[in-house]
């Protein structure tokens, strides 16, 4: 019984000196730390929101009431605003982003591609408050004076008219959607471009050898091959759009109600938390805001997890075949 310990000791010593075990232990610690932080975050959100959860139950998710005077809260207008603005953002950003990625990875000269990619990455690093300020001073007046009246004219027929109804404030769901599109599309471009570049060279060469044109090979061979990675980039963009706060609160109009028209003011989860948390009076108000945070957390976790899975799947597929 004594021998194994004696045998093991030099082995461990060697591993420790070599650094393998040490490195493993440390990196495990770091990895675990991230998990611990996430778990603590959820626990804290769960705990602090318990008064609201007890009082409103699942009705919180479906109620449209948001009244700090009577202490009654519902999340639906904010969930609606968050989902709608993100959807509008993707509607604009996906075709633009994927199109740009195709150009950068397949069609552009390497020098042009590198320069443009650098610029796109710069765009991704601009703080969101800057986008918000730009939007207030340029986008909002343009929306108010030109875009929104024009949309009302174009879509003045049924059944689309109600979606473009109402006074033109300049701010609103659509304006927030546009600013979110500008903010998400650098991510869509970068990740889509990576996915397209990961497509093995042989795939393109084979297509070209069979007589396909450059565009046919891109559209019919490369794009389908990279579609999961592109989908992953879309989900990453969506996750960013869902959680974006400053730029959105500056242009969405912050109105705690659900409006059918996409040019009317609305609200998102992140915006209502940012606006109210510092001055929230009373336990129930704070608790309701924290519960909103929990809802947003669940939403983004779900989407992020899905995106991660997509990306893992595509890179594996690409690596196996190249």
């Amino acid at each position, binding site marked *: 019984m004594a021998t194994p310990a004696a045998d093991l000791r030099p082995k461990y010593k060697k591993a420790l000196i070599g650094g393998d075990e040490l490195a493993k232990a440390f990196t495990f610690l770091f990895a675990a730390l991230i998990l611990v932080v996430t778990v603590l975050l959820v626990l804290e959100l769960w705990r602090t929101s318990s008064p609201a959860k007890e009082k409103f139950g699942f009705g919180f998710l479906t109620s449209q009431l948001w*009244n*700090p005077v009577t202490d009654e809260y519902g999340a639906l207008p904010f969930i609606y605003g968050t989902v709608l603005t993100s959807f509008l953002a993707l509607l604009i950003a996906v075709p633009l982003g994927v199109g740009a990625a195709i150009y950068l990875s397949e069609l552009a000269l390497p020098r042009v591609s590198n320069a443009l990619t650098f610029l796109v990455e710069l765009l991704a690093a601009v703080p969101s408050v800057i986008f918000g300020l730009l939007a207030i001073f340029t986008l*909002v007046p343009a929306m108010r004076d030109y875009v929104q009246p024009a949309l009302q004219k174009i879509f003045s027929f049924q059944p689309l008219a109600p979606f473009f109804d109402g006074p033109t404030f300049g701010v609103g769901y659509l304006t927030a959607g546009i600013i979110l599109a500008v903010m998400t599309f650098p991510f869509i471009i970068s990740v889509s471009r990576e996915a397209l570049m990961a497509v093995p060279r042989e795939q393109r060469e084979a297509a070209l050898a069979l007589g396909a044109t450059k565009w046919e090979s891109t559209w019919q061979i490369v794009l389908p091959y990279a579609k999961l990675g592109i989908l992953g980039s879309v989900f990453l963009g969506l996750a960013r759009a869902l959680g974006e706060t400053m730029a959105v609160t500056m242009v969405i*109009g*912050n109105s*705690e109600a659900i409006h059918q028209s996409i040019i009317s003011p609305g609200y998102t989860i992140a915006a209502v938390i*940012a*606006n*109210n948390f510092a*001055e929230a009076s009373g336990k129930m108000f704070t608790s309701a805001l924290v519960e909103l945070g929990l809802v947003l957390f669940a939403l983004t976790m779900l989407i992020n997890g899905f995106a991660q899975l997509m990306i893992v799947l595509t890179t594996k597929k690409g690596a196996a075949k190249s």
Partner: protein
Amino acid sequence: MKKTLIAGAIAAAAIFTGAASAQNITGAGATFPAPIYQKWFADYKAAHSSVQINYQAIGSGGGIKQLTDGTVDFGASDMPMTEKQVAEVKVKPLHFPTVLGGVVLTYNVPGVETGLQLSGDVVAGIFMGTIKKWNDPKIKLDNKKAALPDKDIVVVHRSDSSGTSFVFTDYLSNVSADWKSKVGANTAVQWPTGLGQKGSDGVAGMVKQTPNSIGYVELLYAVQNKMAFADLKNAAGKYVKATFESVTAAAAASKGLDKDLKGSIVNAPGAKSYPLSTYTWLLIPSKIDDAGKKAAITGFLKWALADGQKQAEGLSYAPLPAGVAKLALAQIAEIK
């Protein structure tokens, strides 16, 4: 856990920055009186170098919250604490009125550059969404000569919880039964209509760049930014411009503060009273264990409520009426 961490960090910061003999005092709360508070604290430090008062302008609600959590030595608020809020604090806080201010309705109506006049029920109607156009007969009744456009009114309100919103909604609840029953008064309410913008600068910016809009900001803010604001019809039926005199007149004519020096002075009687006026308060615990801190805080209060008042007008606030200042000075003795 988070609270203790913050408290620890503040304590650590206090120890770290404090010179051996200095008395460090931390406060937090309303943004509206922050400019004069900062001036007071700086001036008081110049005269009493051992007292360093740090003030964080995080908003009235935040001030009350931090006082309740015990992370600051004093709070500040534009809204007197409710009985429920007072009950949540371990040591009963005392309300010390410090200065007066007003809230004004700033507007941007092409064709009506100045001189817009509004009565209370019209303001309530606009913010309820029942008065939708600028040429509504009810607005015309207040402005017989003005060329009011046939345009939708763009209503702008605060999206963040704020003492200014409390004063404004308190006023609307006072002048409109409809508002009182459907919306009510609070630092944040469920706004029936309009756009929300964060902070006074957010509201002011939105109004400035949106034609046919109206919003509310502190008088001080409107004066500093040279914005147009409407004359309001007061309880005596007179249209009154918001000035520091008309705000003081409202305080003098109102029924006064209760025995805890709390109270609202919106819609005060008197021909010269501006109806959208308010006190702002420092919230000081009634029992301070640390003798040094207690001496510093009471010393500061004695100075602010007497000599400090002279600075109010220079910084665009209205000083306390003499009677109120006297009551507040007498209340200092209640700090044990």
